């Protein structure tokens, strides 16, 4: 009996210790995030000013200056990436949802996951080889295409998921009204799923907004103001990178400020996505 009691006591202790370990793991996992945010705020907010958003970078030694070109460049790259990634992603997602179970759909779904897991640097050198090398110069277009290609699998999978939860009966009702299939898919099914797809698209945009590696050899960065799609273009992540590895303190502060703005941008996009998700199942809102 004493042995049983001792075993029971030991089991209880082991139990308590292990449960404490889980709590500790949770705390430890969240800590880096908190530290990163604190440091971003502490080190980034000091360099944020109106100039940061409106002025161009200044050479080392000159005070002030901002990242206006990098901010506009990032927005342009996001636009280009969406132009490439959204139509292909949504189209592929519709295919996956409508051909569910077919061999081709299963294969495409699998490859889409594989593509999603490809390192972004691989996408970068591919875009260089495919779009920069033949032309002979870096360009915003190449950068946008590389980011857009990264969006495709993400958008495709959310589209598939969102179209999948639209009741089959809704599509049947449209078919029974004499809608052709394509119209049923676009005007009824896709439209019903659109809020969820918008959310997924925003999540994908938030993810590619901070990508650096695919831009290193495509958009390349630009110290000057440029909106041309055929020229190299600045981007926040690129600018953060080159400032961070520079030896100058003033550039380091700009890097922190840039990182803070980039994170803020990503969070705003994610926040919009969350709000969009929340209203997904509420009323459609009429005409």
């Amino acid at each position, binding site marked *: 009996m004493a042995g049983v009691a001792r075993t029971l006591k030991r089991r209880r202790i082991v139990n308590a210790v292990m449960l404490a370990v889980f709590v500790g793991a949770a705390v430890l996992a969240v800590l*880096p995030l908190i530290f990163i945010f604190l440091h971003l705020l502490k080190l980034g907010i000091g360099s944020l000013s109106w100039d940061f958003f409106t002025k161009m970078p200044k050479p080392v030694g000159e005070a002030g200056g901002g990242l206006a070109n990098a901010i506009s460049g990032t927005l342009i790259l996001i636009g280009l990436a969406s132009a490439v990634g959204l139509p292909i992603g949504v189209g592929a997602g519709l295919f996956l949802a409508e051909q569910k179970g077919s061999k081709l759909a299963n294969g495409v779904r699998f490859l889409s996951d594989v593509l999603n897991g490809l390192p972004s*640097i691989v996408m970068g050198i591919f875009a260089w080889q495919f779009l920069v090398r033949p032309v002979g110069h870096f360009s915003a277009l190449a950068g946008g295409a590389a980011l857009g290609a990264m969006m495709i699998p993400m958008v495709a999978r959310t589209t598939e998921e969102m179209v999948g939860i639209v009741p089959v009966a809704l599509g049947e009702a449209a078919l029974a009204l004499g809608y052709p*299939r394509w119209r049923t898919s676009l005007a009824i099914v896709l439209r019903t799923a659109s809020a969820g797809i918008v959310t997924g698209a925003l999540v994908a945009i938030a993810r590619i907004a901070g990508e650096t590696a695919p831009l290193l050899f495509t958009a390349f960065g630009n110290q000057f103001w440029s909106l041309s799609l055929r020229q190299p273009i600045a981007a926040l992540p690129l600018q953060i990178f080159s400032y961070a590895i520079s030896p100058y303190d003033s550039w380091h502060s700009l890097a922190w400020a840039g990182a803070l703005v980039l994170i803020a941008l990503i969070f705003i996009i994610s926040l919009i996505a969350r709000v969009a998700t929340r209203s997904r199942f509420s009323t459609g809102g009429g005409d």
Partner: protein
Amino acid sequence: MTLPERAIIATRQEDDGVTLRIQGAAIGDRVYSGAITFFALCIPFLLLAIAWEIGSAGWPALHKFGFGFLTSSDGDPVQGEFGAAPAIYGTIVSSIIALVLATPLAIGVSLFLSELAPRWLRQPVGFLVDLLAAIPSVVYGLWGIFVLLPVLRDPVMPFLRDTLHLDKTGLFSGPAYGPSMLAAGIILAIMVLPYIASVSREVLLAVPRSQREAALALGATRWESIWGAVLPYARSGIVGGIILGLGRALGETMAVTMLIGNRPEIAASLFAPGYTMASLLANEFSEASSDAHLSALMAVGFVLFLITVIVNAIARWLVWRVR
């Protein structure tokens, strides 16, 4: 049956052009399914194009240096000699460090969220862990340079080496500069943690209640039910999550480039700087001095492509099997 009746469909078609419209609809269907099939085929096509473009660009190097390319450390671009061994070694070692650090934490968090946490705490904590995945690599790198490296330099590295006398293992010896394999591994651990955690959490939440309750009903403690009933059930899914994290770690570029020190040497000590395939590409690609150098870099890119494709395929297979 009278004729006008029989002709209803036909009459209507003639009357208001339904015929045309309906033919148009059939064309619309064909255009639509053609379009979505085309978009779907973009995905395999893109993968093939990546393999082909990078593979063919790297072919001259692979052809010239043969298999030795992967195992040689002679890196002298000026002499036209390249070896990918340090980068491959660094990729593997930094990823191993990342997984060793991240896996227990990720499983711990997921168990906390799926088994222990009160309902009100689950969403916020899960959200915070997911947020880790939303932070761009370059921001991790920035944070690593200015926060992590100083902390590693002093006190962490000296503590490991001198106070714990771990220098005798060889892994924690040598000067504590900061930029090192260890630094890269730690930042990678933080970065892959949300991936492993989210897959694990999903898999753990999919474990049927009966599985837990059966163990608890037999008098098992909470931990015993987790260890004996929940984890075995979720094991293959969790392994899938770990391999998914491995895929991320292998190809992670910016943060690693900023923290690993970028020195093409194989050193036993984790305090020493190193190289990974991704950081090699990020560093040298835009400075490639010759076609041979470029081709060698493309070859490295191709190897990285192949490895991540294989790793992701395995991960997917494992995670799918559970669902």
